[in-house]
């Protein structure tokens, strides 16, 4: 938004924005901050009554364990490949499907829209065994592709639904004008609708990425070889039958979480509005 518009526009009073922001940051960060604190505490300081606010001598030992003595770096790479792969695939499929749902009326549309959600409505416990069999038939157990594909069940329904709602918000008149000018449907999608829903696209992308990044039970059952295991499995590897190296788990969680938060921070431009300003009908 440029300055002139900002000036004209009524907004929330400054004190309210400040209070609300501070509150929001506190609520969101408090547990995470506790995780970070725990990751630099020594074993002795982790569980005390009463709890310790600040460790006497912060230690980097846990980070050393995570970065140099565990499988986390390797799993980090696996997680990136799988999350990027499944996010990209989900986005491509969802863009077309959402455009179809948002811009066309065809027979059985509500039914097909519900069908998209079917996979999400079956409890994980029920689908995990048959899904494993499906993956075996496709010969995809213990492969990147196996997990990438399986994650479609989790990410695709949401991506389709969210993108459909974003596409619907783009005025259809813009496309109609383009079609009169001789543009094809695909051109409409890629030249008009998609650029205009960039913030929506970005948030769906973040959703798909985060969900696959953190998924545990599918990864546990479908990736048994360390060449394809992902980060959440790495977290579980710090636990033995009767013990858990909590300092290391917390350090690993920070290592897992920070890159995403930073990634999001760096993608801010995508979310910033103004892209649509003036582009819509005058």
């Amino acid at each position, binding site marked *: 938004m440029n300055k002139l518009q900002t000036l004209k526009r009524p907004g929330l009073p400054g004190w309210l924005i400040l209070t609300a922001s501070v509150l929001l940051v506190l609520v969101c960060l408090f547990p995470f901050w506790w995780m970070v604190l725990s990751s630099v505490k020594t074993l002795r300081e982790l569980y005390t009554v009463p709890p310790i606010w600040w460790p006497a001598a912060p230690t980097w030992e846990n980070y050393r364990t995570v970065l140099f003595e565990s499988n986390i770096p390797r799993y980090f790479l696996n997680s990136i490949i799988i999350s990027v792969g499944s996010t990209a695939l989900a986005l491509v499929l969802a863009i077309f499907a959402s455009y179809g749902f948002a811009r066309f009326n065809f027979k059985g549309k509500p039914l097909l829209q519900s069908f998209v959600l079917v996979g999400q409505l079956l409890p994980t416990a029920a689908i995990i065994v048959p*899904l494993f069999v499906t993956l075996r038939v496709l010969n995809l157990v213990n492969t990147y592709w196996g997990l990438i594909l399986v994650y479609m069940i989790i990410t695709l329904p949401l991506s389709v639904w969210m993108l459909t*709602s974003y596409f619907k918000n783009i005025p259809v008149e813009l496309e109609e004008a383009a079609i009169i000018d001789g543009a094809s449907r695909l051109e409409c999608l890629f030249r008009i609708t998609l650029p205009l829903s960039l913030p929506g696209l*970005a948030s769906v992308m973040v959703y798909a990425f985060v969900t696959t990044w953190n998924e545990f039970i599918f990864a546990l059952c479908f990736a048994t070889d360390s060449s394809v295991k992902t980060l959440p499995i790495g977290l579980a590897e710090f636990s033995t039958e009767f013990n858990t190296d909590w300092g290391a788990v917390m350090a690993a969680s920070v290592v897992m979480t920070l890159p995403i*938060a930073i990634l999001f921070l760096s993608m801010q431009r995508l979310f910033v509005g103004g892209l649509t300003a003036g582009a819509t009908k005058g």
Partner: protein
Amino acid sequence: MQKQSTGYLFVLPALMVLGMLIAYPVAYTGLLSVTDNAGNYVGLDNFRRVLSARATPTAFWNTLWWVFGSIVFQVILGVLTAILLNQNFRGRAVVRSVTLVPWVVPGIVAATTWAWMLHTEFGIINYMLTGPGLIDEPVGWLTNGSTVLPVMIAINIWKMFPFVAIMVLAGLQSISNDLYEAARIDGASFWEEVRYVMLPQVRTVIVAVTLLLVIWALNHITIIYAITRGGPANRTLITPIQIFRTAFESVQFGQAAALSVMFFAVAIVVVFIYIRTLASNPEETR
């Protein structure tokens, strides 16, 4: 609009991928629900067994509380946060990123950290409350029958409201400036702008997000399972956890499948009604 059959071409690839993955699990679950562990056909036996279990009605009501409690607050908080983050202020980028943190933290870690912070003895929360004398003695957040489910819901809200905020924010960002200008010409105040410009424009987004939150609440058991496993005395037992336990702890895949089928039937009806009434109709008139 013209050539409606083109619509099928657009939606087909996604439906095919999903169909390929889901077809067998759906058929398998259906078959399993009428067979016993040895593979013999047993009719509705599994259904009768799970329905007569003492935990089933408890789990059903808990699930309702869990879903509604979570969603109402997730949506309200999420939309308010989105409106806040849509304002222009310094440090907005940082606040937006920070808002994302609860959602990005791995579920299992978030759950364990909360369990730890809420522990009667080790917990920082009781320590913070007893220290300045806000409460006299530590509260057993997770051991008190009347606080444990609300606490679980609160954690779930904390985990997922950022998702709503980000999705709604994206919707707010796509609103054309003309609409705001029109409102301003009419001399609309901020809250009138929210009511007459922002909310109507992100309505479809909120509708879609709500539906997904329902499904999410119905399917994601990590928070409860990691903290209480449905206890104490089934106070936090929800149906998906019951299914999980029946399948993987009790090795009763037939009964778990029967419960899944019923769960699925209820869920699909709710979703279908929701889609027909809320999501489609206003758009059809466009």
